């Protein structure tokens, strides 16, 4: 071995130089392998997975939505699938439904999640097991959550029976239809039940030691409790919670099991529609399935882009 010790070069100028005295970035050469190549090697497996699967998948979906068939002869490109989709009145209903069951749970679970985190962090000894219960909820698959909501909220479910016992309703049909309904109440409930603890855990992590110190600094500057919440606590945890909210949105917009089990066959959310088309025995429905899937992706991507844009603008607000 020609280099028994690591040699370090001084950190390069540029972004690294303004990282105020944090650790020096690793700059050593590893046994003759240039730094750039080494980094590329480290990243290769992950980039391969994401690159091969994700990028290929997306391009294939787009291509197939335009009529391309990879292994079958006799295909031709056309926008028929998209035309068909946009002239179909059912698509609008699906779009609205999908937007509803994605946006409402995202907003609700963000608000509830942050509130829960603010409550939990003030607990003393009970904090550990309370946050433990929230984390345990994370382990429950969404599919099970859908079943739980079915058993709880359906017209023959537990809540309906409680309502009967309390004298509000006397038949299952008298209880409002929360499952298999047009609005998607049970779907929303299932998502809120699962995603609130997710955002609570994220918010709790963001509310770690550092925020206490910042709040003390704010106190010493004359900020009362409500002012501290609005001007210090919430702004500081917003990036993490917003990031989590983006994940929640993307998940709920693209999820299949929950809307399938808790909603109606028609109108169905876009992912359910996509799979309906995909599983149709008629292969000409394939492009339509792809088109719906591509639309889901594009819309979700636009929402994320919008969020990033707004977040960037907010960060540059002046005095």
């Amino acid at each position, binding site marked *: 071995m020609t280099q028994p010790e690591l040699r370090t070069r001084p950190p390069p100028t540029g972004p690294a130089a303004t990282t105020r005295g944090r650790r020096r970035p690793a700059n050593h050469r590893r046994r003759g392998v240039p730094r750039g190549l080494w*980094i590329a090697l480290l990243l290769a*497996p992950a*980039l391969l997975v994401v690159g091969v699967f*994700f990028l290929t998948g997306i391009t294939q979906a787009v291509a197939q939505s335009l009529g391309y068939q*990879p292994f079958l002869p006799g295909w031709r490109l056309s926008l028929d699938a998209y035309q068909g989709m946009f002239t179909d009145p059912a698509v609008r209903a699906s779009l609205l439904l999908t937007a509803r069951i994605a946006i409402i749970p995202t907003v609700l679970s963000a608000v509830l999640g942050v509130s829960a985190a603010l409550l939990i962090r003030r607990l003393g000894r009970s904090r550990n097991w309370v946050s433990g219960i929230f984390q345990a909820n994370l382990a429950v698959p969404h599919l099970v959550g859908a079943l739980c909501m079915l*058993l709880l909220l359906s017209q023959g*479910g537990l809540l309906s029976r409680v309502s009967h016992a309390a004298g509000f309703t006397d038949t299952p049909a008298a209880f409002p239809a929360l499952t298999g309904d047009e609005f998607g109440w049970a779907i929303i409930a299932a998502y809120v*039940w699962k995603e609130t603890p997710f955002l609570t855990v994220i918010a709790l992590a963001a509310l770690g030691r550092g925020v206490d110190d910042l709040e003390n600094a704010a106190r010493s500057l004359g900020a009362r409790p409500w002012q501290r919440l609005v001007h210090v606590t919430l702004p500081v945890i917003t990036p993490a919670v917003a990031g989590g909210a983006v*994940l929640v949105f993307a*998940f709920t917009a693209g999820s299949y099991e929950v809307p399938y089990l808790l909603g109606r066959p028609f109108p169905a959310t876009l992912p359910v529609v996509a799979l309906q088309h995909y599983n149709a025995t008629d292969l000409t429905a394939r492009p339509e399935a792809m088109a719906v899937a591509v639309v889901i992706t594009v819309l979700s991507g636009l929402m994320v882009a919008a969020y990033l844009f707004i977040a960037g603008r907010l960060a540059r607000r002046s005095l």
Partner: protein
Amino acid sequence: MTTTSRRVAAGAAPTQEATEPVARRPLSVRTGQRLLVGLLLVAVLLPLVPLLIWSVAGQWRYPDMLPQQLSLRGVGLLVDPRSDILQGLGTSAGIATAVAVLACLIGFPAGRAIGLYRFRGRRAVQFLLLSPVIVPGLAVTLGIQVFFVRYHLSDSILGVVPVQLMPTVPYAAIILGAAFANLDIDYERQARALGAGPVRVLLFVTVPLLRPAIAVAALLTFLISWSEYVLTLLIGGGQVKTLPLLLFAAIGSSDTTAAAALAVLVIAPPLLLVVAATRLLSGRSGNGVGFGRL
């Protein structure tokens, strides 16, 4: 009053005004908080109640609040060798373990690159690695399904495991990336200076230091794979029978007891893992596993 050269002898008894201890936050606020937390806990636990009762219910007709008859039929179905359930349990466990191991193995070097090094395009790489998570994966799965069929990877575990890497590798890379960013690289340098080769440094210094993050990444990727339905359905073609697939079918059937019992089985291993991980990790930190280290 000037204070030049004034001496206060040590231990001299000062004139004391020992007043009462100062009051803490008022009792009403604390009770209100306790109440709200209680409500939260009820909301989190309530939906599981009908599930648990149904899993051991024989007959439970509307409008009774409790089953007319309890029965272990549901439980019996779970362990019945004629049903697919035990096999499904094995399949799910096997796939989830394989996916967790592979995702962490792939995410580890990626996390190291992102966390330890500053390089041009780092932001772009992070964004790219994050994309399967931000964007719904349905289009991707539909798009590549034909390839799996073509290369004989569909309808088998050989296809399901790789495709489940797509939602899991990003999480592994992010979690490990954050851990590497917090790692003090001087530990590795010190080990090298003491004569350890790069493999030894990795095994005996780096990995132990990162153990909490690796545990969180493994747990999270296991959970994601364990709960996965659509990807397994599309690529496995219904032939790879994981527990979520069986559960989906059970929910569609009219046998609520069976579905509920199966659902309890589906929850059990992840719950046990989360409890175990929390115990293991809060021994050091104080606040339990933080999944939200995104």
